[in-house]
């Protein structure tokens, strides 16, 4: 016992270092899983407030660009609307069921330079945001909500080691999975393309709608380079994201009204 006390006294500096370092690594390894620790609750509302003040000031510098982008988006949406209206026999908005709803939000903090990047937005559970909701921008898919506090939420960016997205090639209808390999924030990669599917530079990639998070057909990006496999297994492709993650400001949270039903069905299936 005496020896133990002497040992602790002599090496307290090293012991404490090891203790704190292990603590940090445990926190870190927990945070790396998709379902992150409850720490985001506390941190979101604290750092969220400071980030909002900062973004409130810097937002003025890009007002003109944002305005133009919104105008463009408006025009595109109006065009789509008129096309759709022409196709409908009569427009009955009461009986149409809405599956996906979109809640506008502002990005208050965003990174692109790390291996794992996160986005913080200015809407929280008070606004109806829940974990696992999707996050999109007018240009395409952005990420998935992983932590929600009262007024803020944090999302895992597509620029993250654990962000995987089920995608569809628009002209062949084939399905694959998109990852981000780190490095340049403009390019993602698909490594599981069946060999019979040939892609060309510029082919469009959209969401498959298989994830319950995003509706089908949202744009993600275009093929930058198609790399056929030498061994004849699965081909890979480098994808240029349609979203410029470095410019992210106005985003939409995607709410799926059928989410619970779909999840319940999945549970039944896996239990059988």
């Amino acid at each position, binding site marked *: 016992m005496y020896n133990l006390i002497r040992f602790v006294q002599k090496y*307290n*500096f*090293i012991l*404490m*270092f090891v203790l*704190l*370092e292990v*603590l*940090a*690594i*445990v*926190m*870190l*390894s*927990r*945070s*790396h899983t998709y379902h*992150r*620790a409850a*720490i*985001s609750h*506390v*941190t979101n509302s*604290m*750092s969220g407030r*400071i*980030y909002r003040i*900062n973004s409130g000031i810097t937002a003025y510098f890009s007002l003109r660009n944002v305005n133009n982008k919104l105008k463009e988006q408006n025009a595109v949406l109006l065009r789509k609307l008129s096309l759709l209206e022409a196709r409908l026999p009569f427009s009955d908005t009461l009986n149409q069921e809405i599956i996906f709803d979109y809640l506008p939000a502002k990005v208050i*903090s965003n*990174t*692109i*330079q*790390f*291996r*794992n990047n*996160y986005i*913080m937005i200015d809407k929280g559970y008070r606004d109806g945001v829940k974990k696992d909701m999707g996050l999109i921008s007018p240009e395409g898919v952005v990420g998935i909500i992983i*932590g929600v506090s009262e007024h803020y939420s*944090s999302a895992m960016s597509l620029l993250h080691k654990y962000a995987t997205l089920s995608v569809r090639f628009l002209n062949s209808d084939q399905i694959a999975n998109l990852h981000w390999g*780190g*490095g*340049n*924030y403009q390019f993602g990669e698909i490594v599981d393309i069946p060999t019979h599917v040939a892609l060309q530079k510029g082919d469009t990639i959209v969401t498959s709608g298989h994830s319950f998070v995003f509706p089908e057909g949202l744009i993600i990006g275009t093929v930058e380079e198609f790399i056929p496999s030498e061994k004849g297994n699965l081909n890979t492709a480098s994808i240029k994201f349609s979203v410029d993650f*470095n410019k992210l400001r106005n985003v939409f949270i995607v709410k799926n009204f059928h989410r619970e039903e779909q999840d319940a069905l999945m549970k039944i299936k896996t239990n059988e």
Partner: protein
Amino acid sequence: MNKVLINIIRFIGLILLQVLVLNNIRFGGYINPYVYILFVMMLPFAMPGWMLLLAGFGMGLVVDMFMSTPGLHAGAGVFIAFARPFVVQLATGSKEPENVSDPSLSKMGSRWWFSYTVTLVFAHHFILFFLESFSFSQFWSTLWRIIISVTFTEILILLLSLFFIDRKSR
């Protein structure tokens, strides 16, 4: 008491500079300088070991809160707090330099200050970047990023210690 206050102000100032300004500047895509570690570097020589470690850990944790990376900066912060006494010893020869209460550029001289800061910056970035990627699979590309980031951080730290902190703390 005055010294405690100066260190607290320095802490808040450096963290705000880090998360509001420097984290938004992306040199060449993904290089990020981390100057907030200057806080640990400038703590008094006489500070007891446990306090130093807690200061490093706490500093990292606050940065983690802003960057949604629980544990990452805390881990690297603790490491440089742990390494600091050894680096001081290495740079000085004796454990506590005489007549000087806390390390700074003006009190320790430019050669001492450079070797002291650059060693700690490298130690910090090395731990930080490898903790972040959590593997050695891309060792050389990570090492390359570390070296570039160390260069940027060191330049900023030298500038900061020239212009800001010395005048304030005098």
